[in-house]
């Protein structure tokens, strides 16, 4: 390994370098992939873990938050059946009609994945670990694209240590009728780190829905790093949906990075209820005119959970539209973070960007930090943002109670209504209802 640049590093920062050193020989990939990994670990070594003086990490100090580096989980076989998946994700997500792909304990599970059916439907698809040994050009291109974002330490570490995942290519004009459901699980009783990388390439006019769900089989100390890159060519449409229900002790660091071509649509939707520390980064870059993105979601947090959603949308070309709506329900000492950056370059005239984040605080000690950042260098644009933070409306609560609803039930109904707005905006009744069940589950109420 080349000499690192950083003068001082913390024990955990060094542990991550050691993890790479120890694992390097066993990590999958040909010579080019190995070179990619080397370059990425050097980038990480130079930067170290982000801390609060790094503006993008102001509210989530990773250097302080990461206390240890558990061993790499890869190639471990764990027992996974319907009951395990149901327990990890909830019945609604177990029942979703979809092509399933399962990654458990850092291992791609061909035995549990509908790879054959996906191929029959026309999708080029494979286990990332296998494809790294001889990556097709489209996969290499997606690595190169991710490499341009290597200044993001989560991506750099992911590139260095990625072991499992799925790579998908949707050929031109293919419309996939059923969603692809990528299920990420951990390992019972395990203390481990999992690095997964997924790549989605949609050729012109293709469309598909990709659901990524993260659930627990009972890991005691999980550090998850998961990166999914999406390349959406002109006129394609990718709907990217996430349920994060990690173990409550887990660390969940993820990036979704999408490049969106002309007239294409990339929609991202994320719901978080799990993990002690979650940082969800979504990067969207418009590469062609007339493209659109809708990035929305909901966070339900309690105890001392910390959930950070950080978005960067780059309007690099004219006439693109971005919409962002995030809702947070924060109880106890939970902390929610929303950072939304919208960059409009000088050429990106006729940009239409809107952003909204709203938090419902259920306790005096919950905290919501919101940071909109609009960097607008074009003059003919419509951009707006808003952030609100409030408590349950006592007048609404009284109205419901006056109709006979006991206080707890009335509160739950109002909370469901608050987050439910995002589920309805999904415009997919089946998935929206599944999320409504997740919210009801979190609230400890039953849906009718």
């Amino acid at each position, binding site marked *: 390994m080349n000499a690192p640049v950083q003068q001082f590093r913390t024990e955990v920062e060094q542990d991550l370098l050691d993890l790479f050193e120890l694992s390097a020989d066993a990590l999958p990939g040909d010579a080019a992939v190995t070179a990619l990994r080397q370059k990425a670990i050097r980038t990480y070594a130079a930067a170290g873990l982000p801390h609060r003086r790094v503006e993008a990490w102001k509210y989530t100090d990773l250097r302080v938050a990461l206390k240890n580096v558990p061993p790499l989980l890869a190639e471990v076989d764990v027992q996974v059946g319907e009951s395990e998946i149901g327990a990890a994700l909830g019945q609604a997500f177990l029942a979703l009609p979809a092509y399933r792909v399962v990654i458990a304990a850092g291992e791609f599970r061909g035995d549990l994945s509908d790879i054959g059916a996906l191929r029959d439907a026309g999708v080029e698809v494979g286990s990332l670990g296998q494809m790294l040994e001889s990556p097709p050009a489209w996969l290499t291109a997606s690595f190169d694209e991710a490499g341009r974002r290597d200044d993001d330490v989560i991506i750099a570490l992911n590139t260095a240590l990625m072991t499992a995942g799925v790579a998908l290519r949707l050929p031109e004009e293919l419309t996939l009728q059923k969603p692809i459901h990528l299920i990420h699980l951990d390992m019972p009783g395990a203390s481990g780190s999992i690095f997964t990388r997924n790549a989605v390439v949609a050729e012109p006019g293709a469309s598909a829905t990709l659901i990524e769900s993260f659930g627990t089989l009972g890991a005691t100390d999980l550090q998850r790093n998961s990166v999914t890159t999406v390349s959406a060519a002109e006129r394609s449409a990718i709907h990217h949906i996430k349920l994060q229900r990690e173990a409550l002790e887990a660390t969940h660091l993820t990036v979704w990075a999408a490049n969106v071509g002309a007239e294409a649509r990339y929609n991202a939707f994320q719901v978080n209820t799990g993990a002690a520390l979650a940082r969800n980064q979504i990067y969207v870059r418009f590469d062609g005119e007339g493209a659109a993105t809708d990035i929305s979601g909901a966070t339900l947090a309690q105890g001392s959970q910390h959930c950070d959603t950080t978005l960067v949308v780059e309007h690099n070309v004219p006439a693109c539209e971005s919409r962002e709506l995030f809702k947070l329900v924060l109880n106890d000492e939970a902390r929610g973070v929303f950072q939304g950056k919208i960059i409009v370059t000088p050429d990106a005239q006729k940009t239409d960007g809107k952003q909204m984040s709203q938090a419902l605080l259920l306790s005096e000690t919950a905290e919501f930090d919101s940071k909109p950042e609009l960097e607008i260098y074009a003059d003919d644009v419509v951009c707006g943002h808003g952030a609100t933070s409030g408590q349950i409306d006592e007048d609404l609560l009284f109205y419901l109670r*006056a109709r006979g609803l006991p206080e707890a039930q*009335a509160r739950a109904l109002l909370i469901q209504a608050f987050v439910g707005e995002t589920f309805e905006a999904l415009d997919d009744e089946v998935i929206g209802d599944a999320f409504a069940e997740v919210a009801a589950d979190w609230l400890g109420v039953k849906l009718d």
Partner: protein
Amino acid sequence: MLKIKNLHAKVDGREILNGLDLTIPAGEVHAIMGPNGSGKSTLSYVLAGKEDYEVTDGSVTWKGEDLLDMQPDERAAAGVFLAFQYPMEIPGVATMTFLRSAVNAVRKARGEEELSTPDFLRTVKEKAKHLNIDIEMLRRPLNVGFSGGEKKRNEILQMSLLEPGLCVLDETDSGLDIDALRVVSAGVNALRSPERSMLVITHYQRLLNYIVPDRVHVLSNGRVARSGGPELALELEESGYAEYGEEASAA
């Protein structure tokens, strides 16, 4: 029977009800009239149990039980229903979901079986029809984007579904045109029964042409200043509230 004795209540530290006495026997409809600020709405909120309405003296018993000791939802279960002057809009809660939650919460509290979905839907459809309520309206979020008339009809629909023993109607006529007023009044009149008491709060006599009360009380400065039969309402229509603390021109 509703018995209110010497009721004193404060809002934001200001005394609004000031020794109010009122008894409504079962099966009777009583109207409360009075100038703005006389305490009409405060009385309705105190009966329904709104927070911030602090009772400092007196008592309210409903069917022999201390109403003031109950939570708002317990009062609903005990049969007290307040039709709001300004019904709340709740985005994200479908009206139908709300109606069903309310009906089943009240049934559960009364020790009755919850209604099955088909039974509930049949009941709602039938009652909605009498109030000229389109079922489509009930699929929309609760009161969101409803017209004034739709909101009030929705209140009466809730009232008929919850089968209360005491109906308190707080300025149900406000914001209604004459057609809506007729529909709402017919809905209310359909609920009149020997077991049910009603308290109709209004500023104007007009409503009482449609819902004819057994007794009329004039509220002034937080207490009942005068009581009489239906003819009292007509008299007030002529003379205004001038002698009860409001300029005639303001009424």
